[in-house]
């Protein structure tokens, strides 16, 4: 086993990874940018190395500087966390040329899954279901219609040269097809100078469900069940939960097996996640594979009792999985809310700045993976995530009520957060019954008036009392200041001390 590991990341994930390393009696090295001198992960590490200016491209993304930091501190392995260099094949390859171990899959596995078209090809060969679509461009409307009918309506006609939603057309029935097809070709030709179009099945309001997998170097691969990540906005996940409330046991098993097949197809090693789209009939289709630890991994840890980071480190050190698929524990339900310094009432704009006070909830079934502390800044330069709040319950209802309780306990002052928005989601009927899909949040935002303000009068009372206490305190200080040497200033100090003891201050 390693005796020292460098964590090439920042914020909550760096802190979370270091926690597992400490439990494994491994020394920890943090790297930080000039903007992160006072960041929590620097405080929590055994050693810390500054790797450059605030811009990620000059610090956290600098392969040379990270490797140099590992060399100078004598770290034997690097954990990349998520984001930054975690899915960078070049980084993994550069490390392979040193004696420093990359805690993650092989560069070729990262590459295979990183390129969409190649990943699709590989997955098709491995028997992983893909969203049905024509493999090549079609120029004949009759042939295209036959294909569309095979997939079932609605379908999507997509320009081969398009991207980012451009050049896409949804067709709901065979009668509209011929016209839409010709129109799409004309549009594609006009917009991209290329009339080629594909036909793909359009999934109506699918769920985003993913499977956690673990694989060792000897090819033992297991899955650790699913996570439903459909509560998202602009492809940003907000709340994740496991199990997925609408997934049948049969589909869960099938999905798990397919995820294992997908991982095996690229000789995967370490922890990874296979993402699927799940439609209302229980059909699921491969979306992509993330070749790293996911933000939402804690909910899987909560229901399985397995520390995924420890296994990542162990596997990288050459350990074999001690668990067989049938032995993977599964107990209860868990959910995660991502607490961001952002303003939901202002298009979710980041709200960086001073976290004057942060008080995390505690108590039964609550886990808080925070990346900041009272008095710290949420820097402008990076992701504004403050914390990941996770709850576990014997069942979904308990996990949900725990989350609501924990969110109400959570205190963050100074920056704006999405705490109240989370409560709104958790109390929405679509969330409560678990039927929500990836379009749930956009729909909710349309019909939403604004946050509830039932505590308005109490909040005013608190603000007024606070202002009054401050006014009196200022007056008292002024009084002290003006009093002469023979005045009652000593007794004033005494009374101030008494006041403090009584916490009446």
């Amino acid at each position, binding site marked *: 086993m390693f005796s020292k590991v460098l964590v090439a990341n920042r914020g909550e994930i760096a802190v979370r990874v270091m926690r597992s390393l400490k439990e494994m009696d491994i020394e920890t090295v943090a790297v930080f940018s000039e903007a992160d001198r006072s960041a929590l992960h620097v405080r929590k590490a055994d050693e810390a190395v500054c790797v450059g200016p605030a811009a990620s491209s000059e610090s956290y993304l600098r392969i040379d500087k990270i490797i140099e930091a590992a060399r100078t501190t004598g770290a034997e392995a690097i954990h990349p966390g998520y984001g930054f260099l975690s899915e960078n094949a070049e980084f993994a390859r550069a490390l392979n040329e040193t004696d420093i171990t990359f805690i993650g899959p092989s560069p070729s596995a990262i590459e295979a899954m990183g390129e969409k078209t190649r990943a699709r090809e590989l997955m098709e060969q491995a028997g992983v279901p893909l969203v049905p679509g024509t493999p090549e461009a079609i120029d004949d409307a009759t042939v295209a219609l036959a294909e569309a009918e095979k997939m079932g309506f609605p379908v999507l006609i997509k320009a081969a040269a398009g991207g980012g939603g451009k050049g896409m057309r949804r067709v709901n029935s065979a009668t509209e097809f011929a016209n839409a097809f010709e129109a799409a070709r004309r549009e594609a030709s006009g917009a991209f100078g290329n009339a080629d179009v594909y036909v793909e099945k359009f999934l109506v309001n699918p769920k985003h469900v993913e499977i956690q997998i673990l694989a060792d170097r000897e090819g033992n691969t297991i899955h650790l069940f699913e996570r439903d990540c459909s509560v998202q906005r602009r492809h940003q996940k907000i709340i994740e939960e496991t199990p997925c409330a609408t997934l049948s046991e049969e589909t869960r098993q099938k999905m798990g097996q397919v995820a294992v097949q997908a991982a095996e197809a690229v000789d995967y090693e370490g922890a990874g996640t296979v993402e699927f789209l799940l439609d209302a009939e229980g059909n699921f289709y491969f979306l992509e594979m993330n070749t790293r630890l996911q933000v939402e991994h804690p909910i899987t840890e909560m229901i399985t009792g397995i520390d995924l980071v420890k296994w990542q480190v162990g596997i990288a050190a050459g350990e074999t999985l001690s668990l067989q698929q049938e032995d993977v524990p599964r107990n209860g339900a868990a959910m995660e809310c991502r607490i961001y310094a952002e303003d939901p009432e202002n298009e979710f704009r980041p709200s960086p700045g001073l976290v004057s006070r942060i008080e995390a909830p505690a108590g039964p079934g609550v886990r808080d993976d925070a990346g900041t502390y009272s008095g710290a800044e949420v820097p402008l330069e990076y992701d504004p995530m403050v914390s990941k709040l996770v709850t576990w319950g014997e069942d979904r209802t308990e996990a949900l009520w725990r989350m609501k309780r924990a969110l109400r306990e959570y205190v963050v002052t100074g920056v704006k957060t999405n705490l109240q928005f989370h409560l709104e989601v958790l109390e929405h009927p679509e969330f409560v019954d678990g039927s929500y899909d990836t379009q749930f949040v956009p729909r909710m935002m349309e019909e939403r008036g604004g946050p509830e303000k039932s*505590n308005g009068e*109490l*909040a*005013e009372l*608190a603000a007024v*009392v*606070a*202002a009054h206490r401050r006014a009196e305190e200022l007056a008292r200080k002024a009084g002290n200041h003006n009093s002469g040497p023979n005045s009652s200033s000593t007794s004033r100090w005494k009374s101030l001390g008494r006041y403090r003891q009584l*916490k009446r201050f």
Partner: protein
Amino acid sequence: MSRSREYTVFNGDDEQRSWEVETLENGRYRVTKPDGETIEVDAIAPDDDRLHLLVEGKSVDAALFRRDSTYQVQIDEQRHDIEVLNERELRMRAAEAVTAGGGSPQLVSPMAGLVVKVDAEVGQTVEAGDRIVVVEAMKMENDLEAHRSGVIEEIPVQAGDSVEIDDVLAVIGEPDDE
């Protein structure tokens, strides 16, 4: 000993609400709400940015963060931005608003002192420059004159009152105000 203080609250709606707080013994306060109801509140600050209130037995564990005159208040998951102005800040706000818009109705004291004489009464029409109040400060009497012409709507002070800087001495409405 402690006088009661008035606070004006702006809670984001256009509404402006008046509160009054008087300090009692032992961290207790008598609060008059905007609707006139009076309640007693027990307050402690258990930690930075925290204020705990007992409001007639109800426990309110609030978090507060002050930026200028605005308090960001969190109670449970709800968050409120509440601007609180004391009497002086409110007068200054009004004065600023009027400087921008031309002609504040309020004549405010430029000094702290003792009111020795009031030379006008409510309802009287005055010209700018007329003496309204005499305030003694530093053993000198100062004539405080109407800052504009109009009808006296209010004179909140009387001889013998002590006043602070920016306290309102008179409110002078437009001459043909309805």
